[in-house]
């Protein structure tokens, strides 16, 4: 029985590579040309993001594969429009679409950094990261930390947004600091002490869900802060090394002259 199942799996016809890439190309162009915000269109875009995300997951283990390069080429072709559409959905869509769009952005940042693609990363870092940071303002304010579908939706959007920012902070922490990320993070209600965090810090007397939810709200901020300080420190260490190398080089050249 098992052998029969295995043999039927082995004989499954595979979609030819060109057709697969043509489908992905069509999905990417459908995302970039879909501009309306009717419910049907929103739902359609959600499905398109899911298809692309699944494809990204499908090709992930093989980084140097031809599929990886073709997907990068497809996204790069119309990167501005595709990224613009995804960021709009990440900021203005309904919660489910926001989460999907942010997860898509996270995957694109990974793809862009793996392929060192300026076409993907530059528009994100220059035009959109500021809006993502500003949007933290509303996202950071849950009404209550008790578990509910409303809280879960807000948490998923918040976590997905923080994950994108974390990924971007790993690439260029200074840009994010210059765009005012710290000021927005300061508004986190737990950091400000405005959400009774001190009353819910004891795991024995606090409702476990509230305890966990409060920490879930605080943890991405700490993770992002750590990434920013470590990145800033490393980038200044790299600058010092570059300066040191330049000094040694000039010293060597001057000693050669002597």
């Amino acid at each position, binding site marked *: 029985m098992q052998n029969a199942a295995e043999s039927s799996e082995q004989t499954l016809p595979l979609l030819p590579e060109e057709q697969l890439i043509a489908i992905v190309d069509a999905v990417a162009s459908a995302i970039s040309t879909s501009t309306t915000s009717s419910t049907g269109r929103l739902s359609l875009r959600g499905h398109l993001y899911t298809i692309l995300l699944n494809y990204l997951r499908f090709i992930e283990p093989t980084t140097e594969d031809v599929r990886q390069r073709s997907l990068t080429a497809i996204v790069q072709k119309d990167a501005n429009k595709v990224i613009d559409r995804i960021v709009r959905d990440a900021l203005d869509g309904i919660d489910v679409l926001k989460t999907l769009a942010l997860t898509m952005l996270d995957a694109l940042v990974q793809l862009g950094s793996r392929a060192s693609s300026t076409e993907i990363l530059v528009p994100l870092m220059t035009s959109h990261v500021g809006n993502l940071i500003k949007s933290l303002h509303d996202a950071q304010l849950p009404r209550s930390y008790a578990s509910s579908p409303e809280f879960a939706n807000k948490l998923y959007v918040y976590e997905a947004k923080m994950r994108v920012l974390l990924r971007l902070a790993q690439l260029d922490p200074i840009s994010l600091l210059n765009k005012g990320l710290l000021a927005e993070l300061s508004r986190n209600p737990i950091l400000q002490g405005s959400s009774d965090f001190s009353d819910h810090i004891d795991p024995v007397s606090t409702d476990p869900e509230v305890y966990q939810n409060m920490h879930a709200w*605080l943890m991405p901020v700490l993770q992002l802060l750590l990434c920013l*300080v470590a990145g800033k420190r490393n980038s200044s260490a790299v600058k010092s090394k570059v300066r040191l190398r330049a000094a040694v080089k000039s010293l060597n050249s001057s000693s050669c002259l002597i």
Partner: protein
Amino acid sequence: MVEFLAHNVATFELLLQDRRAPTLTSLTTLQYISGIYYHTASFHAQAPASASVPTTKATKLILQLLAKYGQRRWLQNLKAITSADSELLTVPATLFVPVPGIYNPSALHQQAEAISVQICRNLISYCRAIDLAPPTELAKFKPLFVPSLALDEASERTA
């Protein structure tokens, strides 16, 4: 960044006090906070003397944390909070040096201890960074690590 820490000092100190029973969540929080303090230690040291940097209290709390997590007694008070934690409690530990009072060490204990090692690493690095501050700023701090074999004045005189 130092200003950010100073602005939110109440929450950071509350977390550094770490008075409650440890959980995987609280340990992960401490891991991040200790990492933030470690990476900003050099900024603290470089900050002008006039800047209102709450380093001294944080350093005291950090030394207390180091004393707490430098030993393994805290593992006896470890609490499982989430269902994932409870699952881990049922899985036996594979690499765990026995601790008095813990008869069935679980994967939860093992994971918590791994995080605590990272916390200690960050705390020690913070203390070293503060200790190695440039001479102009060193006067602000008392040395945190003093060589235990250093000769005191009396033994110097007799030597």
